[in-house]
């Protein structure tokens, strides 16, 4: 299940759509109303711009040191342009349903961005681009506040952790930029803790 390429029936079936509104038969495009399984590799891609499973696994590994094995039981799907969902298991593709696993990642933009929920669910395995906050700073982060951060390295998205019940636990995603850690906690999930 860990390798999309092993399931030949799925590959190539992503995102086929009959022509465009004007009747011309252009390349298939992303259909925001359904889930399409990501192609295993670029060779199997039929929808331009759609990320591949290989690229998604590489990205988690390169950016955060989360090994591909962490997602061995998960398949990746696109619904909504660039929105990648992680689903444990598989169903036939395309799937015209309302939800499939959790939204994990924003792609189709220069810098891919993990979701808060994916950071909480998978971010415990991260070994780089992680910033650990003390009690007060963690509380500010959960409120959605920006705060100064001294850090070596390039700007970009970080997994933010704090200690809870004796061990580090991922809170969410921060954007490190211009000496600042910008909380990416969505408005609806911010809390005064």
């Amino acid at each position, binding site marked *: 299940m860990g390798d999309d390429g092993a399931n030949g029936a799925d590959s190539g079936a992503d995102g086929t759509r009959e022509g465009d509104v004007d009747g011309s038969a252009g390349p298939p495009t992303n259909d925001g109303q359904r889930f399409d399984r990501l192609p295993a590799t670029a060779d199997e891609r039929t929808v331009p711009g759609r990320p591949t499973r290989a690229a998604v696994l590489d990205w988690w590994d390169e950016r955060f040191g989360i090994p591909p094995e962490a997602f061995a039981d998960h398949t990746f799907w696109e619904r909504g342009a660039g929105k990648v969902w992680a*689903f*444990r*298991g598989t*169903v036939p593709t395309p*799937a015209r349903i309302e939800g499939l696993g*959790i939204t994990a990642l924003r792609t189709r933009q220069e810098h891919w961005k993990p979701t808060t929920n994916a950071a909480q*669910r998978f971010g415990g395995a991260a070994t780089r681009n992680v910033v650990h906050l003390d009690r007060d700073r963690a509380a500010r982060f959960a409120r959605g506040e920006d705060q100064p951060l001294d850090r070596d390295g390039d700007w970009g998205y970080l997994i933010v952790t704090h200690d809870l*019940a*004796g061990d580090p*636990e991922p809170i969410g995603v921060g954007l490190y930029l211009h000496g600042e850690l910008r909380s990416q906690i969505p408005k609806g999930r911010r809390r005064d803790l």
Partner: protein
Amino acid sequence: MAVLDRYESLIDDYGAFRAACERPLPSVVRVNTIKTTVERARRALAASDVETDPVDWHSGLFRLPSDSAGANWPYFHGWLHGQEEVSAVPATVLDPAPGERVWDACAAPGSKTTQLAALMDDAGLLVATDNNLGRLSALRSNAERLGVTNLAVTNEDARTFSLAPFDGEPFDRALVDVPCSCEGTIRKNPDALDDWSIDHVRGIAGVQKGILRRAVQATRPGGTVVYSTCTFAPEENEAVLDHVLDAETCRLVDYDLPLDHSPGVAAWDGATFDPAVGKTKRIYPHQNDTGGFFCAKLEVGG
């Protein structure tokens, strides 16, 4: 609450029942074992200065001071989910295992769905269906906060549920926690009975029969279906099972329930039911200081 007087003949200590219905409910949370352990959640709550009272029949439930259920670190991390004590019953009766195919037919807002996912260790296929798109959005955000990744969500009427998106293969287990007249939630929603009418009870019972029949059809022979409501009305409980026992190939089975309860009633309002409805269980608010509930376990096949 005069509506409840229609059940006086069914309930042993009706005075205690009515008195319990007048009291507010304690706030209860369930530990989400997809993201943490019961012990670690307890320590995290203690570190947040939140007192916890254990619930003796279920190690993963805590009673909390009423104002603190959603405003603490473990909740933020999706380690906890607010869920009334009796609402945790049907998933434990269905008892799904990792790797199984499970359907939650009336799933939103997802307390029981996410409990099923935790019982499955987030492995195997869990399909959650609801006919209300707005409530499905609440289900989706609960499932995401709790880190449930083995969930597929569909928006349709459970009575005409389609297995097509799921290879057409039947389920091992189905939870049928139907929309109901909600009489048993009176402690949580004091206006729960304001719009009560016998026509509504009869109308919704027809929907309940249709949903339960579809769940039996969509479950493999030998599989398990659990039917539950948060109401006392026999029209929505034993009468629904009596109908489905006759219309579909399935049978009621007994099960252990570590809460005080009463057996299903064999007759009501001039009707008598299949005696097997004695295997269903009614939970009254005064028996365990909880909300009211009804739960039945069915095995599919002859």
